[in-house]
């Protein structure tokens, strides 16, 4: 699997403070605008979205995904490569 976080993201989506379902739906909307192969960086503090809905969406759509938890900041960075 590619080291997605080392790839310059084509776009960054900050959904800090937003809870389910917004992180997933806004991620979907942003991904639709990217080209195949481009990486989207999502910043989220919504655990359910980070650990459940966004991974399920990526799996369903064949997107590679990598999650980094920033313990000190209390949020996650998610790197998603559009298929």
């Amino acid at each position, binding site marked *: 699997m590619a080291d997605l976080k080392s790839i310059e993201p084509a776009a960054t989506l900050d959904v800090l403070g937003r809870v*389910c*379902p*917004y992180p*997933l*739906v*806004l991620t*979907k*909307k942003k991904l639709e605008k990217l080209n195949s192969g481009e990486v989207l960086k999502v910043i989220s503090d919504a655990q359910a979205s980070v650990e459940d*809905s966004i991974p*399920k*969406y990526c799996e*369903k759509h064949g997107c590679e995904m990598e999650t980094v938890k920033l313990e000190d900041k209390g949020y996650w960075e998610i790197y998603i490569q559009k298929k």
Partner: protein
Amino acid sequence: MAIKKIAFIVEKLPYKSETSRLALTHAIASQTVEIHLEDGDNVEPVLAFVGDGVLNCLKNQKALEVYGVSSLEAHVKNALLLDLRVLVCKEDLEGFGLTEDSIVMDAEEIGGEVTTQVVPYEEIQQDLESADHLMFF
């Protein structure tokens, strides 16, 4: 493989019940259900405000200070942010002496790209007739 069109029709006044808030919550949440469906299946929501329900779209609601709850206005903006089709009945809006200037027409300040459509009831009825499921709130 199918797209199911669901119409969420809001007829009730905002506040003092959870009715219209539930409509907005369900319409917004319907945008995520594809992750639980078979490949190719999805839901296309349309949110229509008719009758007293058009008052849910009013600008400058003071819900937090009056009722201590979040504003329906903010939920309508969130629906627009998520590209939902939001329809408001033109005749009912006029019946209250309101215009497009009185209601939430866009959510530009939070990144929304679509706008509210104020349309004659006839157009809303066409949407209802083409929907697979109708949910009245």
